């Protein structure tokens, strides 16, 4: 095993993976260290999967710049990586007169942020677009380019592209300490030591703890939990656009949105929690979310719930992202990527590469990019079951071949949850009543074959 690298990225969330990809594609020797059994086991495991335009982000912020760069790069590369896009648009819906009065400012801010196609629409136009929305809706700001993506296949594709460019991804490899000797970092991980010239901290909800390896952390992470309720597939016809609330001083409020997998979901809540690792749901909150969804779209009262989940946003005391290079220590901090990191990841990676060039070293001449398309899981696009084979998971129509592929190759699923994220097996309405034992058997077989 080679143990010295140009770049070590700590953290296998969407941000770390996008950074790994960027540096690997620039021709550097890179390694990513992830404490979990698989990538995407932190904040990136449970989000809303909206591709944001940045229309409501703080004007002039680094966050906005990264989101917009990330948005553009996603659209530019998605065909070659086989990444889906559900062009839903979003509606910021006013439910009260006071909210209605705020719409012009929302539109004006969007325009200031460069999202010039945002416009206010009246009650009639809103009803024509969203006939299932409650009569209580008074009007909306339409955001035509706010869209829906797959929260997991995107970072998985970044990982595969990085691997194709020679990067390594080490899982079960929590970084426990490190020392900089003036030239490179010696990092100690749960799976052995390694050397890297430059270390990038992209540790999400553990960002401040990892930062302490390099310096007393200038920020503190207080994870902000978001819970979700996912409705069964017939619900997806009831709201075409992403239904956003008018934000208040206190909260951004919950969103009703389709998922790329063909469901309709509501969430996230925003609760500060102590737990960095485990995102738990609680019944009263789930009941409230469901009730709120029914208020917005009354027909949802007749539709069952398929899933519940929660995610932890890596929130710091600062509003903006914390992205800094410490050139005297060859350390780059990427912290507090709270609630827009899925969109911004590719933009963050570009920004980090620029910081590297400006403060640490030049980048070598980049090789020709290698494209590594990932399997499609989006419901609105062709899926393998349509071409035959054996279906194992009936609710989500996942084939044996898809499961086998996810259990092999360059980055096989590291645990059962990783397998679910790669295939959707057992994630449908029966939640494994019919197929979980078959899937477990395939998982065991693959693990046994590997060991």
């Amino acid at each position, binding site marked *: 095993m080679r143990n010295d690298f140009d770049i070590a990225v700590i953290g296998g969330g969407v941000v770390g993976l996008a950074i790994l990809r960027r540096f690997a594609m620039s021709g550097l020797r890179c390694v990513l260290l992830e404490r979990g059994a698989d990538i995407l086991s932190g904040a990136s495991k449970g989000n809303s999967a909206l591709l944001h335009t940045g229309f409501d982000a703080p004007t002039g912020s680094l966050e906005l710049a990264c989101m917009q760069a990330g948005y553009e790069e996603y659209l530019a590369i998605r065909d070659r990586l086989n990444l889906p896009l559900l062009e839903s648009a979003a509606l910021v819906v006013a439910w009260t007169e006071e909210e209605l009065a705020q719409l012009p400012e929302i539109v004006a801010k969007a325009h200031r942020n460069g999202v010039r196609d945002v416009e206010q629409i009246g009650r009639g136009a809103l009803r024509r677009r969203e006939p299932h929305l409650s009569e209580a809706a008074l009007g909306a700001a339409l955001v035509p380019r706010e869209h829906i993506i797959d929260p997991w296949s995107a970072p998985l594709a970044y990982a595969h592209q990085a691997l194709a460019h020679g990067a390594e991804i080490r899982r079960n490899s929590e970084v426990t300490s490190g020392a900089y000797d003036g030239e490179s970092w010696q990092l100690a991980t749960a799976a052995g030591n390694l050397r890297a010239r430059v270390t990038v901290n992209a540790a999400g909800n553990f960002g401040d703890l990892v930062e302490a390896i390099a310096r007393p952390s200038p920020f503190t992470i207080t994870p902000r939990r978001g819970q979700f309720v996912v409705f069964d597939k017939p619900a997806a016809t009831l709201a075409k656009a992403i239904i956003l609330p008018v934000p208040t001083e206190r909260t951004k409020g919950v969103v009703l949105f389709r998922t790329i997998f063909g469901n309709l979901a509501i969430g996230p809540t925003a609760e500060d929690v102590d737990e960095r690792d485990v995102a738990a749901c609680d019944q009263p909150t789930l009941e409230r979310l469901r009730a709120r969804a029914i208020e917005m779209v009354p027909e949802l009262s007749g539709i069952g719930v398929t899933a519940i989940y929660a995610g932890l946003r890596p929130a710091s005391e600062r509003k903006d992202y914390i992205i800094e290079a410490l050139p005297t220590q060859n350390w780059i901090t990427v912290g507090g990527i709270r609630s827009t990191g899925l969109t911004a990841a590719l933009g963050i990676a570009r920004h980090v590469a620029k910081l590297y060039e400006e403060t640490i070293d030049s980048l070598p001449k980049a090789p020709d990019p290698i494209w590594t398309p990932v399997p499609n899981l989006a419901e609105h696009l062709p899926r393998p079951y349509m071409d035959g084979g054996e279906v194992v998971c009936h609710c989500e129509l996942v084939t044996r071949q898809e499961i086998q592929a996810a259990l092999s190759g360059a980055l096989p699923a590291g645990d059962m949850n990783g397998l679910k994220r790669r295939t959707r097996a057992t994630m449908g309405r029966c939640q494994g009543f019919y197929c979980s034992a078959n899937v*477990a058997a395939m998982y065991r077989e693959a693990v046994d074959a590997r060991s």
Partner: protein
Amino acid sequence: MQDPDVVIIGGGPAGLSAARRLAELGIRNVTVLEREAEAGGVPRHCGHLGFGWQSHRRIWSGPHFAAAMRRSVEGLDIRTGTSVLQIGEDGVLRIRDRSGLGEIAARRIMIATGTRETPRAPRFAGGSRPQGVMTTGALQQHVYLQGFRPFKAPVIVGTEWVSFSAILTCRHLGIRPVAMIEAQARTSAPWPGGPIARLIYGVPVLLNSRILEIRGKQQVEAVAIQSDGQRRELACDGVIFTGQFVPERAVFAEGPTIFTAGNVNAPLKTSGQCWHEGRAVAENIARSLA
């Protein structure tokens, strides 16, 4: 190929008994579409005794019953590995099988897609998401079809008949349930459900109790329950959500040429009752074709 007279969706007790009865009545142009690799339905994985009495006056295990049913339809057109995806407005079935997508039309459709238990999510049972949380049906497939022991000391949620099937399934691999918990003041299954669980199987039954939270990172470590108004913790390494059956109606339609049989029609019935219902509905279909 000529369209069949009858297409039956689902090859469980109701679907297979209907196919057999239609053949007996001289309607041989019948096709059963079953998405699993093998017909038989839920009894395929109910490895304990409790099947066959109402239909065959025998006491069999589920797999034995399923095998007997499969023998009774030998020679008929049973297409496994074939999922019905949708019943079109036009009454044409959109299907997919090992060769890909397809369509099939018939003069009569029988929906016999059965029922499943309500899993954790729609019950809003909170907490983290460790391994070791499943329904009885899933547990049976782990235990009887794969020989897996997903936990050693689970909590059983519910006291319906099927909850006792969960106890039997556990015992098969030496799994010892820690407790059964029931939200009501009495067990759902008729007396002597509670005493049987306690006295014969040594599983305490906690009434007026509901699950608040599941704990654990990799595997379940405990559940928090509300029991007689008190919050308490039960150490366990799994949770079995039993019963609260919902019809499996991922494909469903109504109309003069569409019939239903078995547990896709609530309320829950035994496999024998579903077998009889399949025969009775087959007779209605035969009459409607005459």
